[in-house]
């Protein structure tokens, strides 16, 4: 990405900063990222999708350690990305941080943490969002 208007990132702030998803008030399914229409209730869900904040806690479904990154992530290698299933049942993809990469396991409990994700260089915007860290390590620190 590069050369984009900042509005593209600004409009996603509630989702990326605070994990705001949507809940279909017809079937109670929760979605993240937000959906305009519930794929199961379809027209019945129109106007009945309500915003809901997700807990940010979940477990690792699968993961990888990236050694060959996209350009903007060159300074971060090696880094871990995972598919995380949140308590609410929705799955998201992001990085796993604050732990040894070789300690990451399928089933590991993680929680969302607010982090810098990428930027447009020295003079450009900085983009923030969620990453995940192990739950245990965080509790050890207390």
């Amino acid at each position, binding site marked *: 990405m590069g050369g984009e208007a900042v509005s593209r990132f600004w409009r996603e702030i509630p989702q990326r900063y605070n994990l705001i998803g949507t809940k279909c008030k017809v079937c109670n399914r929760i979605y993240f990222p937000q959906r305009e229409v519930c794929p199961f209730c379809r027209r019945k869900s129109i106007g009945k999708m309500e915003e809901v904040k997700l807990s940010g806690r979940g477990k690792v479904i699968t993961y*990888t350690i990236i050694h060959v990154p996209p350009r903007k992530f060159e300074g971060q290698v090696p880094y871990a990305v995972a598919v995380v299933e949140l308590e609410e049942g929705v799955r998201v993809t992001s990085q796993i941080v604050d732990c040894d990469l070789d300690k990451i396991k*399928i089933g590991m409990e993680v929680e969302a943490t607010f982090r810098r994700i990428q930027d447009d260089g020295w003079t450009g915007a900085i983009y923030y969002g969620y990453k995940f860290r192990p739950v245990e390590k965080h509790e050890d620190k207390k």
Partner: protein
Amino acid sequence: MREVAIIGVGLTKFGELWDKSFRQLITEAGTKAILDAGIKGSEIDALYVGSMSPGRFVGQEHVGALVADSSGLSVMHIPATRIESACASGGMALRHAYIAVAAGIHDIVIVGGVEKMTDVVGSEATNILAMAADQEWEAFFGVTFPALYAMIARRHMYEYGTTREQLAMVAVKNHENALLNPNAQFHRKITVEDVINSPPVATPLNLLDCSPISDGAAALVLCPLEKAKEYTDKIVKIIGSGQATDSLALHGREDICTFMSTVKASREAYKQAGIQPKDVDVAEVHDCFTIAEILAIEDLGFVKKGEGGKAVEEGLTARDGEIPVNPSGGLKAKGHPVGATGVAQVAEIVLQLRGEAGKRQIPDARIGLAHNIGGSGASCTVHILEAV
């Protein structure tokens, strides 16, 4: 609905073809297909071309018109349509050309697939390929395309005990097959150890688990079956065509180890063809990464879910196995110019069914299948062909 035949195929060499431009590649493939079919250019009613991202790879959009123009067809003002479906762009172009001929809208249609990927540096190619993933909810966080397949591989190993060695064996087999394909990008035999010791890209996948960045083009000529005999006796007909989708993002699926798009598209194609998976004599499947071939043979129904790794290890998919898979060398070793891939897979199946595949010929191949995936399984086409 009319029955549809493929009466001509054309392929360029695949590889880092620094001396060839986008338009030269597709014109070369198209010209070869026209000569192979024995048709005149003036008989062509329409053109479909699959290309994933010419806008980013060579800074050119509007390539339907470009391809018609460069191949000399724009003077006839024929309809020319570019189709995009990430790495399934080629299979999707064939699918829509097939629909047009079957429906009676057009008679003689040329289908092309092309990608010119080496006009950008490698890291930019990585960025462009990641555009097949969900930009806002996967790529934004630093996810690459190999990373998505690596996460599938990790989960497959966890759920089914698939081994690092079994993944490597897919690459070893396909490199060996490519030795017999003069158009292949790689003519280099590799070992399981070579794959395991190659540099990590996204664990557990290494460099030699990944298909390469390639330039290349492929083309086919389609016509109604009843007209095919006017042009050639080497007729291959399309007996099944399926297309399906799934969530754009990998995390949008309940089962990370199954491509439901493959399951749905292949069942649709099998049903139309009136065959079972075991009836397939030869298959070209979408092995953009080693794990992808294991998933493909499971989801196409060649083996049970979870047994793909074992099947590769036991030689089921070797050239002399029960269901030879990727005799061309596959995406892994033949090369993967993304838009060209789906068309080139079908071209290989046509050559196999005509008995013209040279040293890599599968003896007595009568029914062949081509399986093309876009993204991490969000799009799929399956085509089943039969020698007439």
